[in-house]
């Protein structure tokens, strides 16, 4: 099962590899360019509060998050066809999806940490203990959010309602709009604070951590199963052409 799941994802990766390499090159290229801008003495003075390396870390981690977002859009959660017709029931299929999700979660996390470490010798953006914890939690939930995407339709074509508008389920709206915006805001706040080297004291950080855990945790857990359930319908995921119109029987 595992090998089939990995192969399924790997096929998508192979298909999109060149595009992604392009993204990476453009991305890292831009970071380099920005670095050089920052190295410019005049600007460096203005940003003296921030070490150049830290700036680099911020940019790279943002870039990586954008890349991971793109990855997640393309390698969606999907049950392979065989699981629908071979000896597997709802339980087995749900387990397949959950395993797939956690593999993507783990991979994304490792990707973030490894690349950041290779390029900047440290996975943490700031030296502040509290900020370190916030960063990890934030990464965790950001990855959780962006990977909660299910592959619908053969070419990702959405079901349309009578008026021709795409149909999104309540869970998808909650995760992709509300929670996503919330995550976005949290990231903006975090990175701005890192940039300005502004961190509140210990009690505040603990409070923030708890709030983050509860609020993000709520979204993450509450909508986990509902989103996964979207992928459990063979009809939805592998939508077939409707039965052909009756063809004149000729002998």
């Amino acid at each position, binding site marked *: 099962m595992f090998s089939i799941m990995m192969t399924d994802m790997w096929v998508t990766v192979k298909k999109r590899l060149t595009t992604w390499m392009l993204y990476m090159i453009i991305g890292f290229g831009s970071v380099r360019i920005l670095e050089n801008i920052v190295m410019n003495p005049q600007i460096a003075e203005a940003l003296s509060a921030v070490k150049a390396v830290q700036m680099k870390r911020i940019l790279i981690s943002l870039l990586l998050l954008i890349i991971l977002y793109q990855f997640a859009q393309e390698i969606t959660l999907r049950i392979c066809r065989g699981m629908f017709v071979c000896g*597997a029931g709802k339980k*087995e299929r749900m387990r397949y999806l959950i395993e797939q999700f956690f593999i993507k979660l783990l991979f994304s996390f490792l990707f973030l940490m490894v690349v950041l470490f290779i390029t900047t010798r440290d996975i943490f953006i700031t030296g502040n203990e509290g900020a370190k914890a916030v960063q990890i939690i934030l990464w965790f939930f950001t990855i959780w959010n962006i990977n909660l995407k299910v592959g619908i339709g053969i070419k990702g074509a959405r079901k349309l309602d009578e008026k021709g508008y795409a149909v999104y389920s309540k869970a998808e709206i909650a995760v992709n709009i509300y929670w996503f915006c919330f995550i976005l805001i949290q990231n903006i706040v975090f990175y701005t604070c890192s940039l300005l080297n502004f961190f509140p004291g210990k009690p505040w950080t603990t409070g923030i951590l708890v709030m983050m855990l509860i609020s993000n945790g709520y979204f993450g857990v509450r909508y986990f199963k509902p989103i996964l359930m979207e992928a459990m*319908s063979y009809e939805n995921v592998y939508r077939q052409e409707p039965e052909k119109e009756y063809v004149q*029987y000729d002998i």
Partner: protein
Amino acid sequence: MEDLLKVEHLNKRVGEFCLKDISFSLKPGYIMGLLGVNGAGKTTLIHTILNLYKKDGGGVYVDDMEMEEEERAVKDKIGFVLDENMFEESMSVIRNAKGFGKLYSKFDEELFRIFCKNFGIPLNKTVGSLSTGMKVRFQLAFALSHDAVLFIMDEPAAGLDPLFRKELMRYMQEIVEDGTRSVLFSTHITEDLEKMSDYIVLMRDGAVFLSMPTVDLKERYRIVYGTKEQIETLPFFRVIYKEYGEYGSYAFLESTEGEDYGEYEVKEPLLEDIMYCLEKGGYSYV
């Protein structure tokens, strides 16, 4: 003898098309053909039986186990040969078999290899690169390797040469020979069903038009030949369709007890005659 497969009042809507109140059953040891023109709903029915499409109502029972309630146990007993490829195209035959074989309680890899050898399936080629005929053989080999009792095939012979079609029919006969396993297969090629099917389910527009033993079906209808005038003035009851030709005419009718067709030239219709005439005649009496 208990039913191996029982379908009861199955309903399913797919877009504009509906499966309506489908009911039939199949005992172990027989071959059942699912017949119908393109668009009659054969593939939709098979997909719904296999729970690929979630049914709107009714029940599907294999060995008295309901499909939705005990899906894993039910599918463990089903071997499939479907029109679309359900395996991973980019993985090799053997890796697919090993991977999906794990989902079955009695998958025997050695047996699978033996079938592949007999069928001429290359184990290390990717499934996606196999020809249509090879894909069918692969599915059959896999289906035969996990001790399935019910074989469901969706247009397995479409696109195959007559040589392999004959082989396929022979395999089906071998499958049911010991009396414990059954085959349900859909097709619009009636020749395959003519001699070897035990039962026919004829579908029309999403519903079951009839479901009966093949021999009974062929006895139910008659084709009567004659001149144009003879056919025009046919004195029989349940005439369904008449066709007039330059060199002869005929009528297709449902035989009634007591009617004597002795005067005319009469023949027992082939399945394709039955399908053609029913379709042309609107499935009801003239």
